[in-house]
Every structure is written in C-alpha cells, then in structure tokens.
C-alpha cells in the first residue's frame, strides 16, 4: 500500500511557515515558504542564504526569491536554519 502522505504534501503544509533548504553543494537557505511546484522550485520570502566557504560562513539577505529546484537536496520544515 502506498504511504498515506506524499512527501510533497508535507511540504505543502509548510506554506506560510519558515523552512530550511539544504542544497547539494555548500549552500543553504532559510525563508518563509510562499509556494513551490512539481520540480520543487520554491518561492521564499525574507530569505537568508548561507554559503560555507574555506574562509567561513557567508550570509546574504534576500527579498522574495525563486530557488531552482535542481540543486535542492533536503528540506527541514519549521526550522530557521543553521543558526537556530
């Protein structure tokens, strides 16, 4: 029997909440999830980008942002990211 809830249904329930997005590379984002599509391209608001480099972690604040789903690895609902 198929699982009772699909993974993307869970993400759908996060719309309007904070979410932590971990990319395939050394990059992470947190923001308020406004929406997403079948490719898990995501629209986020009040975004912080975290970039881990040999020189340390670099933070960038962003306005409303469309994040390409191509490089997304993991999503952590309800989390405000690495600093929380």
């Amino acid at each position: 029997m198929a699982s009772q809830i699909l993974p993307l249904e869970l993400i759908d329930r996060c719309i309007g909440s904070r979410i932590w997005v971990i990319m395939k590379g050394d990059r992470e984002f947190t923001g308020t999830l406004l929406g997403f599509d079948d490719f898990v391209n995501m629209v986020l608001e009040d975004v912080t980008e975290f970039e881990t480099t040999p020189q340390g972690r670099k933070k960038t604040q962003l306005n409303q942002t469309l994040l390409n789903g191509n490089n997304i690895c993991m999503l952590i609902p309800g989390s405000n990211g690495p600093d929380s």
Partner: protein
Amino acid sequence: MDESTPPPPPAELSPPPVPSTVPSGSPTDFLKGVVGKRVVVRLTSGVDYRGVLSCLDGYMNIALEQTEEHVNGVVTNRYGDAFIRGNNVLYISAAEAI
C-alpha cells in the same frame, strides 16, 4: 558542474498550474510579479547577474537588460542585454519590492 547531460535540456519547469482564483505564491506567480523589475540572478557557480528581468521561459532561460556581472561583490562585466541559459541558475531574487 552537476549537469553534463546530453542534448535534451533540463526538464521543463511545471506548466503553470491551473490558475486557482487566488494568487498562490507559486513559482509562476512569483515570475509574473518580477518581470520588468530589478532582479539578482545567482548561478550555481556563485556569479551574480543584476539587471532588469525582461523575460524568461519554462527552462529558466533568462533575458536580462542593463546587466551587471558581479564576482565576489565586484562588477566584472556589463552587458546591454544578456541571455542566461537556465541550467546554470541557482535562484532569481527580487532586488526591489514586488
């Protein structure tokens, strides 16, 4: 980089979901809102392109006007118009309120 796939370009972004009566904050709605506005396009390489978004398609191919290329916060090039191939795009961010 991550995508050295043969000819077929990356899978198309989802077709605009059947528009519900209320704007849903979906990627399609976001894109409708930012066309004609100043945006930051960051590539997976970390290079930024700042300019006015003239249009884009379902592959996230982008046409930008008044484009500045930023590498590590330094302007490295300026282009009147620029076409950016969508597979390189990490994100498109509004540089002004939308």
